[in-house]
């Protein structure tokens, strides 16, 4: 049976422009949620977000210089991909490579296009601003990464809202295990924009304070942005070049609760199916799971439904399985969230450290989990889950295992 290894990680978040800065500050219990400066927040319930610092967007030397119309979301993806390739010690060249690219596609160039839409809705001219709209298609960041790094294999963009990049990593691992490609770049990228900010504001789903996942005082999520790209590599391919993995992708599960567009099925029964499907795909027993990187949005409905699902799967043993959410530190990065969380989970496995749930301080009886208050703590899970839930009832769970 072929294995899919994670041999490189690139991260760009509100906590830092790279993997190590993000990881170090996350373990220290810092948060990247702060006043949003990307656009005017007058009239919104909150003025906070986990915004990526623009100084992080200086692109390194890339094989192909990006077009000047490259959106923030595409720049995030390019930076994360570049870091991931370098981390995996794979050459960053413009030579064509038959590798897959599987990304979760989010708002893509919508932030840039909003300027165009605003002008048009106000009766302004349509003859300006072509560059603002060329990245409206959600697969634009995928196209930019593939163009820059000359990838010629399957190029897949999953758009299932907040579970997009979790599924992307799962599909990438499957392509590798099925011998379709030796290497796949997988993850996601998403950028803040007025649409999502206004949308979650209208749903009353945002907390005016930084998000507090699993905490009884929680009042909603904090939006975030960023990107993660993981190098998912066939084990023998990695061994032959002496690469060491952070973790193995053992399997994944994906189901739908068929319940409601924005609310999870509250009993946790549907999410339980996803966890069990993932464990079955991985050939892993619940008793082997030592850590869960939860979805943990800090909304009133999500956290109890998620914990109920874990309780159904793990029973009393759940008390000894740490469950943390990074969304109090990194915000909810929507279509990039699952990729970022898969990367954090792989780092946790490789380094024997569990990231804290930043913002968590007061336990909620409705969320009966060990939520890992800050700072992070030591832990050596041999098997860990990374769990995501999305608008439309789409849930996805990745099962990662320690290196052999």
């Amino acid at each position, binding site marked *: 049976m072929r294995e899919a290894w994670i041999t490189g990680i690139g991260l760009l978040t509100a906590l830092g422009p790279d993997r190590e800065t993000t990881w170090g500050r996350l373990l220290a219990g810092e948060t990247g949620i702060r006043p949003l400066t990307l656009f005017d927040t007058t009239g*919104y319930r909150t003025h906070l977000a986990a915004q990526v610092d623009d100084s992080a967007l200086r692109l390194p030397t890339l094989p192909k210089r990006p077009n000047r119309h490259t959106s923030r979301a595409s720049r995030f993806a390019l930076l994360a991909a570049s870091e991931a390739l370098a981390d995996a010690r794979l050459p960053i060249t413009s030579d064509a490579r038959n590798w897959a690219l599987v990304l979760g596609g989010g708002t893509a160039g919508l932030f840039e296009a909003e300027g165009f839409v605003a002008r048009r809705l106000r009766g302004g001219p349509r003859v300006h601003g072509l560059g603002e*709209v060329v990245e409206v298609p959600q697969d634009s960041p995928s196209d930019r990464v593939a163009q820059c790094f000359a990838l*010629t*294999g399957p190029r897949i963009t999953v758009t299932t809202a907040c579970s997009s990049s979790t599924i992307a990593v799962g599909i990438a691992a499957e392509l590798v295990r099925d011998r379709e490609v030796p290497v796949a770049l997988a993850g996601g990228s998403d950028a803040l924009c007025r649409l999502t900010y206004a949308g979650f504001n209208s*749903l009353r789903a945002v907390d005016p304070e930084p998000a507090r996942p699993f905490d009884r005082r929680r009042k909603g999520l904090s939006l975030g942005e960023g990107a993660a790209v993981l190098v998912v590599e066939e084990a023998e391919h990695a061994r032959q070049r002496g690469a060491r993995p952070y973790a193995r992708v053992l399997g994944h599960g994906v189901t739908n609760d068929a319940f409601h567009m924005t609310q999870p099925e509250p009993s946790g029964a549907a999410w339980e199916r996803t966890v069990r499907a993932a464990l079955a795909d991985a050939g892993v027993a619940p008793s082997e799971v030592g850590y869960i990187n939860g979805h943990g949005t800090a909304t009133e409905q999500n956290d109890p439904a998620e914990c109920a699902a874990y309780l159904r799967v793990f029973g009393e043993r759940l008390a000894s399985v740490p469950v943390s959410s990074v969304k109090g530190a990194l915000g909810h990065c929507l279509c990039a969230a699952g990729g970022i969380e898969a990367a954090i989970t792989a780092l946790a496995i490789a380094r024997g450290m569990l990231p804290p749930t930043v913002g968590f301080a007061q336990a909620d009886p409705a969320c009966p989990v060990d939520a890992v208050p800050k700072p992070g703590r030591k832990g050596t899970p041999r098997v860990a889950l990374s769990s995501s839930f999305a608008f439309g009832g*789409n849930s996805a769970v990745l099962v990662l295992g320690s290196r052999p």
Partner: protein
Amino acid sequence: MSAARVFVRSIGTVSAAGTGVPALVQALADPAWRPQLGIERPDAPSLPVAACRDFSPRDVLPPLVARRLDRPARILAVAAREALGPLGDPLPWARDRAGVCAGTWNAGTSALLEVLRAVFLATPEEAPPAQFPSTVANAPASQLGILEKLGGPNLTFAEKQVGGLRAIAEAGRLLLRRRADAMLACGVDEADWLNAEAYERLRTLRTSARPGMALAEGAAVLALAREPGPAPLAVLAGWGSASAPAPPWRYPEDPAPLVLASRQALERAGLEPAEVGLVMSIANGIPALAALELQALEALFGAHRPVAVAIAERLGEGAVSGALRALIAAHAVAGSPLPAWEAPAHLIGAGFPSATTAVRAALVPGLAGGGSAIALVLIAP
């Protein structure tokens, strides 16, 4: 690459030709049929979109159900009901083992514009909360899953022109990996002025002065299953996927990904190129794409000349277009009489004949701006 054997159990569609597969086939059989093109936009002339002008969910969805759905979800739900009808009630599978795989280019854009209208012309507080969930591209597939209580995988792929083909290929993969017993694989697009205006600015839309594409609205659904059932229409026997680097709005200059994807699909199906009897052409009115396709088909087929059929010039281009081409391929290999469609001009000149006879194997290639290529192979059951 594992051998694929996934069955197309039934099909359904809503398109500019009307609601249902019979309406589509009847319209395409008339060489003179052309949909009325057009979509309104602020302070500017209409743009060429083949919209589902007379679409109404009234005969299929109860009013209270239809009202909960946005337009692309209604269109998809009606197409899906046509595909689900022949499968019986209850379905032959547990609903937790049946899912949805959708591909879309632009689903959610109209809802997105409604939310932004409030943000920019009123205040953020006036953004309509009921519209926001419809701005996500996976809304039509998710709403279909909720409507039909389908608890299996529910995935959406956004890959411009090849989104529908990707959805079908990934549904096949999900079935082969036994992640589901049945999948509604589909393409769905809506008519919206933002996408159309972007492509007008890129000078790829058809005008009276230049050739180009029209955009599509509609949905095409293929009900796929691992088991053949009593009367399968076709077998999804293979798929392939490759790409060439290109900016998001441009086709690549090299036909290689189209050739490679087609070869992979044929190899997975266990077929030689000479066994292909029908090619569902990717022609959409853009001359550069036609030239790429001709190079690819000549490289793939050598001297062999299967029947070639194009529909996107009439029904419009989009993620739904690829799914529509797959739907017609399934219809054709099922033994249904082929209407007298003409091959596209660039292929007629190269000796590809128009459709006249029944076929047993069909190739459905696709190529998106940005350079992603997918090909499907459908064969008679």
